[in-house]
């Protein structure tokens, strides 16, 4: 765990239980709106959106008693800010093993911020087919949109300043579930925007 020090403060905004409840609620909302999971394909945006997508697909599958297809995409190649020189991360594999034509794609990401990642994901999805509809689920909506994009399902609305960072730690990647708001901080690990 990270310690607070003079120059940065860390406030937990979702603990493990809260995160679990938020995903369970989103799963119910998805089913309520779509009536069933029959046409659903869940696709997470790497990294962390794919982890949340797997959890959501499992939860929806459990409620429906059916397997819900789940994939992952890396949208780096579709971004409008592809390279930042010093920050050249490895592009990860995009894995969408299902036809998305005519289906409802549930796009999943951890934090919705400027909307640019989602814009890139929408472009990428169009290259894979023509879904009947695309819906967006995010764990945290922190505001500050720069594009006309809005989420359909939100785990937590979190008003933030631009200087703050939202750190999403997940069991699968960091060993524990927690969402925290960090002020003037630098991230040691975990995802943040």
């Amino acid at each position, binding site marked *: 765990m990270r310690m607070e020090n003079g120059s940065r403060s860390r406030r937990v905004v979702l603990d493990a239980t809260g995160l679990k409840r938020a995903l369970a609620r989103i799963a119910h909302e998805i089913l309520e709106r779509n009536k069933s999971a029959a046409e659903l394909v869940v696709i997470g945006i790497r990294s962390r959106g794919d982890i949340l997508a797997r959890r959501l697909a499992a939860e929806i599958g459990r409620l429906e008693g059916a397997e819900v297809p789940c994939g992952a995409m*890396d949208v780096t*190649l*579709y971004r409008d800010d592809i390279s*930042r*020189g*010093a*920050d050249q991360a490895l*592009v990860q594999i995009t894995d969408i093993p299902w036809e998305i034509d005519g289906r409802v794609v549930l796009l999943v990401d951890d934090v919705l911020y400027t909307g640019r990642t989602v814009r890139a994901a929408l472009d990428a999805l169009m*290259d894979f087919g023509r879904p009947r509809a695309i819906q967006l689920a995010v764990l945290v909506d922190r505001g500050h949109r720069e594009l006309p994009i809005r989420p359909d399902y939100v785990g937590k609305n979190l008003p933030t300043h631009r200087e703050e960072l939202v750190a999403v730690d997940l069991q699968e990647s960091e060993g524990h579930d927690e969402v925290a708001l960090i002020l003037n901080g630098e991230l040691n690990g975990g995802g943040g925007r």
Partner: protein
Amino acid sequence: MSMLFERPHLLGLEGLSAEEIGFLLDTAETFKEVSDREIKKVPALRGRTIVNLFFEDSTRTRTSFEIAAKRLSADTINLTAKASSVSKGETLADTARNLAAMRPDAIVVRHPASGAPELLARHVNCPIINAGDGAHEHPTQALLDLLTIREHKGRLDGLTVAIVGDILHSRVARSNLHALRACGARVRLVGPPTLVPRDFALFGAELVHDLHEGVRDVDVIMMLRIQHERMNGRYFSSLAEYSRLYGLTVDAVALARKDVIILHPGPINRGVEISSTVADGPYSVIMDQVTNGVAVRMATLYVLVGRRRLPEVQTTPAGSGIDSTARGMVAGE
């Protein structure tokens, strides 16, 4: 965090670390998926211009680079020596300066003279990718060979690789030797003494002049193309005799490990350096090499060209992104 490839150009593989090579191979592995899509195109290099400058004939390497660039949405221009003003006496440096004035985002160059890409790199302000220079290096070919080997064997470290044929004149052999050694593989160079320079032992290669001894218990056999024009008696008495002594047959393959794979950079001289039975047999991964060639060239173009875009102002600390790129460009190693 992520591995970085900070070099401004890809002039050769000599001196690259296992991490740098691994980063390019990992990136290439991801890009393979793009070629499996129905729409085989991503917008990563949209609006960028890649010049393919070829002073030597090469259908497959040029095509591979062109497909790679197009799958990244870059525009490509092909210039071949015959069609350009090179035949009118313009020097390479002049050609380079003229090309640079047209503001390409990268130049892919093949040239019969060793060191030509390096010379070009000193005169232009964009990434240079060596697509084969003389008997010096052919880095993307070796990268695709390594990717193919890694895919089939799951690793490079600890493997034994026999490279068989005209080592002396082969840029493919040189690039592979450097990269395989960097990644922890053992390399045997196999061929007649006239075609296997003794100096190569300095790079950690084992030199073997008998084919059967050379391929014994190896994990990988990499055959090189024999250039007929070299078989004029100066390096070897006749093509037939070379083929009898160094042509890869089923009998020779049987001496290697049971799970051996056989590579060849193409185009194949059937019945000369490799028998048709072997080239089309179960151990042959030659077609995988061709597929991987596109992925490796996509990765190279993406890594070298993609990062030249200006950094995102709001999140990049002052001085990190632009400066390192700019410095690299000027240094032009």
